[in-house]
């Protein structure tokens, strides 16, 4: 397709040109047409401004909270174990055997 002073590329094509590479025909048209080249330039400026936006620093209080997630989880593992050990058949079995041994030892000593 030949672009002329009366036949401009669509805005989608121009935006695509601003973001990616343009074909030779379009580049020639941009050199001749101030209206289209201005459009492409505006879009490029907008893209640069977004790309150059300043990085946001994570505030210290948020950093501390996020780091605490790991330690909270560690703490909760211990608490979960203490609260739920009897649901685990292995620990339940061990504790039962220990209880029987302790009762037996106490019984032996008392008698």
């Amino acid at each position, binding site marked *: 397709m030949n672009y002329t002073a009366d036949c401009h590329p669509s805005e989608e094509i121009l935006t695509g040109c601003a973001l990616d590479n343009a074909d030779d025909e379009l580049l020639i048209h941009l050199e001749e047409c101030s209206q289209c080249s201005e459009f492409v330039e505006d879009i490029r400026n907008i893209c640069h401004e977004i790309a150059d936006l300043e990085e*946001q620093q994570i505030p210290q209080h948020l950093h501390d909270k*996020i780091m605490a997630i790991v330690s909270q989880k560690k703490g909760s593992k211990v608490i979960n174990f203490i609260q739920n050990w009897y649901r685990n058949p292995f620990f339940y079995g061990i504790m039962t055997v220990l209880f029987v041994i302790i009762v037996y030892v106490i019984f032996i000593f008392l008698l």
Partner: protein
Amino acid sequence: MTEADFKKIYKEYGQRLYGFIIWLTRHRAASDDILQNVFVNIWKSQNVPSSEIELERWLFTVARNATLDHFRKVTRYSRFRTYYQDEYYQPPTDPDAHFTWKELSELPEKERSILYLHLKIGYTYKEIGEMMEMSENLVRVRAFRALKKLREKLIRKEI
């Protein structure tokens, strides 16, 4: 996930995820809550991708989903909506910049996400499409539409 893995993820991606969330919410306090939730989810998750590329995409997807959840909650409770709308975050603007943060952030969420992921983070339309479950063409169209809207705002401002 080990504590060391968690800290490594935070160190490498925390800043960028925070920038992305602020870009989407425009609100500092809300972004703080969302980022904290994101890292709680990461820590709890059993399926953290092992490859760097997949991990980064996964993190941005988790961050976006957490932000969308936040938007849903805010919409549900109008009391909070008022609270959040009153406190838009405005970073120090570059005196040479053509537009302010608020104008940029008035775009719909999807367009905002696409622009940020493409222009700031550097993802291709195809990658963004996979992350946002959209076709590559639709991502491209939305990016074009967003840029066009920004240009129109810019022209209106100059007039």
